[in-house]
């Protein structure tokens, strides 16, 4: 059991960490999130393996763990939230920096919807299943998130339509 699980985890670890990073915006939190989700997956591995989509199970565990842990955290001043350290990887990329910083200001549920929709490129139905909510909720959460991001990301007051 452990060997099969290890093989799966080694193959998908990079993608899972990146997904965790997108959810948390923080490398250490991303590592913790991945480790916690992998622990849960290892415990349920015989059942997860039978469903032929273990990665979906891990991602669902990551999303739900992220939202639950966020609920348990004390309220933080937005200025104290650690932003992604992009200097090592994309120095000078102001636009990308702005996108990640803007994501930090979203509530966890809206942020999870945005990450799943625009980073993982999942359809609304899959997002709804991952989050355990309806498609309508996904759509409303996504609309609210975009409304919050619009003033942060738009170069000028008038949004540019393509």
């Amino acid at each position, binding site marked *: 059991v452990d060997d099969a699980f290890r093989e799966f985890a080694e193959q998908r670890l990079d993608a899972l960490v*990146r997904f965790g990073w997108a959810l948390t915006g923080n490398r250490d939190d991303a590592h913790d999130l991945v*480790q916690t989700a992998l*622990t849960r997956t290892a415990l349920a591995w015989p059942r997860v393996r039978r469903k032929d989509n273990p990665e979906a199970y891990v991602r669902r565990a990551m999303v739900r763990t992220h939202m639950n842990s966020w609920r348990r955290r004390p309220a933080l001043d937005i200025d104290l939230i650690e932003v992604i350290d992009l200097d090592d990887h994309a120095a000078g990329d102001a636009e990308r920096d702005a996108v990640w910083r803007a994501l930090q200001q979203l509530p966890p549920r809206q942020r999870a919807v945005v990450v799943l929709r625009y980073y993982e490129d999942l359809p609304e139905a899959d997002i709804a299943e991952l989050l355990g909510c309806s498609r309508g909720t996904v759509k409303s959460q996504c609309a609210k998130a975009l409304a919050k991001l619009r003033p942060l990301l738009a170069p000028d007051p008038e*949004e540019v*339509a393509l």
Partner: protein
Amino acid sequence: VTYVEQQLRSQLADAPPIDAPPELIDRALTRAGHIRRRRRMVSSMALVAVLVAGVSVVLRTAPRPTPVRVTDYPPRSPRYSVGVDGRAAAMGHGDMWVVGAHDLVSLSTVDSHVVSRVALRGPEPASSVAVSRHAVWVARNGVVDMFDLDGVLQTQMFLGGSWRIAAGDDDVWLVTAGQAQRLHPKRFEIIDRVPLPAGVPDATVVSPGALWVLTDRSNVVRIDRDTHRVSATLALPAEDFADIAWSSGALWAVSPTAGLVRIDGSNFTVNSVSAVSGTKVTTGAGRVWVIRHDGDGVLVSLLDATTFAPVTPARHVAGTFSLYALAAGDDALWLPSLDGSVVRLPVP
């Protein structure tokens, strides 16, 4: 597609690489192992708890074996309040008579209610009681009272000295140091005086044809009730015998140390028959009762008069008892206590 959506798609897809340390997997597996072990331990403990609870339920609900009862000896020990500090007792005419320091009470052996109660006249405390065909006799220090069977005082005789009293159907005997006196059963007159060998009388009892007197706690004197002469003097095997009683053709003597002795009524042979020791012996219904002091009460032993074997295990009865007050009927032993009650021990 809005500008914001375009920015999100392009910038998130172009996210920089981030390190994914393989030890995340090891730590996850290690932590999963710990959780598995903890779950197994909790499951084991829960299983043990369920088993323990199940066993306890089974033990609580399982039918318990009925305690083995040797006999109904006695199933209970009823106590009847008589208000007399029982110092001596005797059976007669269907009643049990108890004499205290200053009272005489009769208790029905049928329904255990007090039949009569009378206060003794004079300050002398009573020490002995006997029942004859027509009267109840109470010996006190220097005084002998005769009551009728209804408890009414008939005659009082001042004799001086300390007396032991024994009564047959038609003869009453008063015994003191050096002599025995036979009284008329109705007129309360002294009919005859019989000299006794020297010695202090400790107990006396009437048997068919004889009066037996225990003297100096070590000798038994037999007086013929017809000839009024001493017919035998027997030495007992110890010097601390406390009481004598008659049953089944034999005299029984008990000692706190030497046990129970049987003296054959025909050939006067003395045999130690039991190690059961005591301070008081009485007989009834072919059985021999012996009591002795035992802790906070008395120990009552019951033996068969023929086989000398214990009829039941000795029975402890708690209470404050005179070690010389005891009366046995055909169906029960009556044990007066000094605190004003009477304990009835049924014959098994």
